[in-house]
């Protein structure tokens, strides 16, 4: 009964991983293929675009994750109270997460539009000069990060909310009797009890953010001057524009290794792996 699933899974997940590693040692370009050893990896070391994309991906992941997780936690704590309009608030914060990244990118392209976009118009009302957000080397990556924070915060909020609702109420009652204030409750009960959820979000968040591609390809195409190119964007353009399949495969192996290393490090140093039920 697992045969149909395993057939698809083997052909489209397991075999591709192996094929990918194999390809990374070749110079396959859709026409010809020969084994070239670790040459692709040596070329990577001196490939300026690779290092820039690595740096951009790291910056993107760091800032997006810090903000989405912090804001998600804050919102979850606030929206865990009994408020009027609770459902409306939760729905609006989660809404960006339901819409496709392409649609969202289109809308934000329009918001960031230099002469008629709402961002520059709104800044103008306060007497602040506009910018060419996505066409400026200094602001392009930041602009994409801001959009991604807007899109993903609701997701982190929902998972944190689930975590908060799993904390048994008697723990709070116990420390209230001991005279703890709200801040102390947060530090001594909420945060420790949320550690498994936080850890889980951190691991999956790193993996997801490290694969940033759609918004980059739609909004900036990696530009200006490679200021927003990311690892996956490099894989895509090397493989499907330059047809350097072997070289692109070696890039994906690097991506795979980074994701694996980060995940393992997380499991090892947070000592929370045992509590976590990935399924």
């Amino acid at each position, binding site marked *: 009964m697992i045969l149909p699933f395993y057939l698809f899974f083997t052909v*489209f*997940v397991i075999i591709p991983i192996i094929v990918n590693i194999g390809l990374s040692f070749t110079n396959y370009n859709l026409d010809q293929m020969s084994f070239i050893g670790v040459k692709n990896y040596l070329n990577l070391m001196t490939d300026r675009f690779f290092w820039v994309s690595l740096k951009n991906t790291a910056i993107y992941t760091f800032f997006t994750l810090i903000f989405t997780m912090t804001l998600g936690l804050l919102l979850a704590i606030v929206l865990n109270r009994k408020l009027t309009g609770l459902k409306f608030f939760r729905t609006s914060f989660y809404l960006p997460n339901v819409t496709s990244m392409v649609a969202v990118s289109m809308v934000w392209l329009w918001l960031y539009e230099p002469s008629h976009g709402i961002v520059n118009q709104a800044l103008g009302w306060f007497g602040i000069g506009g910018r060419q957000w996505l066409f400026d080397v200094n602001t392009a990556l930041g602009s994409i990060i801001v959009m991604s924070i807007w899109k993903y915060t609701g997701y982190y909020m929902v998972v944190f909310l689930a975590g908060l609702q799993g904390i048994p109420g008697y723990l709070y009652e116990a420390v209230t009797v001991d005279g703890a204030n709200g801040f102390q409750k947060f530090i001594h009960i909420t945060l420790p009890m949320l550690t498994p959820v936080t850890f889980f979000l951190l691991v999956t968040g790193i993996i997801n953010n490290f694969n940033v591609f759609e918004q980059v390809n739609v909004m900036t195409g990696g530009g200006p001057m490679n200021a927003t190119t990311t690892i996956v964007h490099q894989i895509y353009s090397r*493989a499907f524009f330059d047809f350097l399949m072997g070289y692109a495969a070696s890039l994906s192996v690097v991506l795979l290794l980074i994701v694996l290393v980060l995940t393992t490090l997380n499991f090892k140093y947070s000592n929370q792996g045992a509590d976590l039920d990935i399924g």
Partner: protein
Amino acid sequence: MNEQSLNRLISIIMLVLSLIILVPFLIMLVTSFKTMGEVLAPNFTFIPKQWAFFNYIEAMTTGNWGRYFFNSFFITAVAVVVSLIINSVAGFAFARLEFKGRDLLFFISLIGLMVPQQVTMIPVFLILKHVPLAGGNDLFGQGGMGWVDSYMGLIIPYIAGSFGVFLFRQFYLNFPKSLDDAARIDGLTSLKTYLYIYLPLSKPVLATLIVLKTTSTWNEYTWPLIITVSDKMKTVQLALTLFRDETNVQWTLMMAATTLIVLPLLIIFLTLQKYFVEGIVTTGIKG
């Protein structure tokens, strides 16, 4: 400040914040109803001066929009139905049947959750390009396009994911053992046990997975971008980029098309919110 007025203050702050979150959607909507002249006017107005409903007609008649929508609907429907059947059967087997190597096989399928699609997109493309006897290929998968630029190529990779298997397995693990024993006494085979007992009880998971899988398939951009060549195989997400070339963007048409693409999912989300949240809460993983 007492509890009640504190809550009221927080409510007001939250209201302002959620309205800020909604601004991009509102801008999308109002822009889709404006004329290009008004969009380019120096002063921004929120409400359109004249309602340009024709933007929607014009947007949908530029290019092959009927076809793009059909493609997206078709791909989503087939991917959701097929992957649900395959995933629930496999989830049942992993949870309730005992067979050799079960735990090892299940452990291997964990890899499906860890390894991102972006890592395997090149080999998956190459495998589909070299499917034997398809798209002009010979017996050895050479010479033609294989399943590149075809519905098979667009749909099949979505079916391979192991996310649904985990969801079903988790769900079925909670069923009492006596259920299987009762089925066995009644002489049901495993397949019939699954069909007549487990499947009818799976409605909540089915609903959750339908919602998550529909959303992720409908919203997918990267895979169609790689696997399609011709205009007639494009999905709605790819077609959105048509309103933009190097020199010019037709903002009003683009926002009208964006609205139409986002709308079906927003309606599904608002009516079936519970299932979106449930899937995320039980697994924390996006479909």
